């Protein structure tokens, strides 16, 4: 009993499949390896929340997976420029970014 893979999620069809496709295509340039990695890390982040205490292992995993999908879909469907939160926290190995312009808050 562990986090479902993107492959398993995709086979469900519907919203989970939509999430998997957009998660990999829009946020990870089709890099399935990084996408799978970040999917697991995001689920793990939510598993470490207080709300998961008291849930059984399976329920905690499914709740965390569902919350990541809901968050991802609401961001990916919004049309606004977004990126994978995990990429934002720990950018994948790439050449160093050019100097960042100042961001507007939020």
């Amino acid at each position, binding site marked *: 009993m562990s986090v479902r893979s993107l492959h398993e999620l995709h086979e469900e069809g519907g919203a989970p499949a939509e999430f998997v496709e957009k998660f990999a295509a829009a946020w990870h340039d089709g890099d399935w390896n990084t996408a799978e990695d970040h999917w697991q890390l995001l689920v793990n982040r939510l598993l*470490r*929340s*207080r709300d*998961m205490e008291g849930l059984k292992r399976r329920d905690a995993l499914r709740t965390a997976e569902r919350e990541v999908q809901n968050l991802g879909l609401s*961001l990916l469907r919004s049309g606004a420029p977004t990126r994978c*939160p995990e990429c934002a926290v720990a950018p994948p190995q790439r050449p160093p970014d050019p100097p960042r312009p100042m961001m507007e808050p*939020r």
Partner: protein
Amino acid sequence: MSSGTPAVQPPPRPGPRRRLLRWWRSRDALSRLHRWLLLRALPVLLVFLGLYVLNGALMGWTDAYNVLVGIDSPGDARPTWAAWPLSIVGWAAIPAFVGGAVGYVVSAQIQAHRTRELSEILEELRRSSTVASNSDGR
């Protein structure tokens, strides 16, 4: 910049009583565990050491150790009046204090997991997704 205020003597060096009071009144700066170790466990440890040394001097170190860990009955040891307190400390006080302190540390470690709310983490992820969205050349 003390214009207007009358000149006063510099503060005197604290005497031993002051130093002791200062130390006592600073005790609450310690963390919970350290404060407890200093104010509760250390006195018990000192009582235990005193009893052990007393019994060691009276009946020998090996016999004192045997009474302490319950190998020998305090009723068989001489003198009995010193062996009984050592025996009781050995099976009641020390296990209770060690168990209590270790239990506290272990439960602190256990409770360090899952301290943040789900909504808090989700909001943080949402923010990092939108704020830094155009920063890595995409």
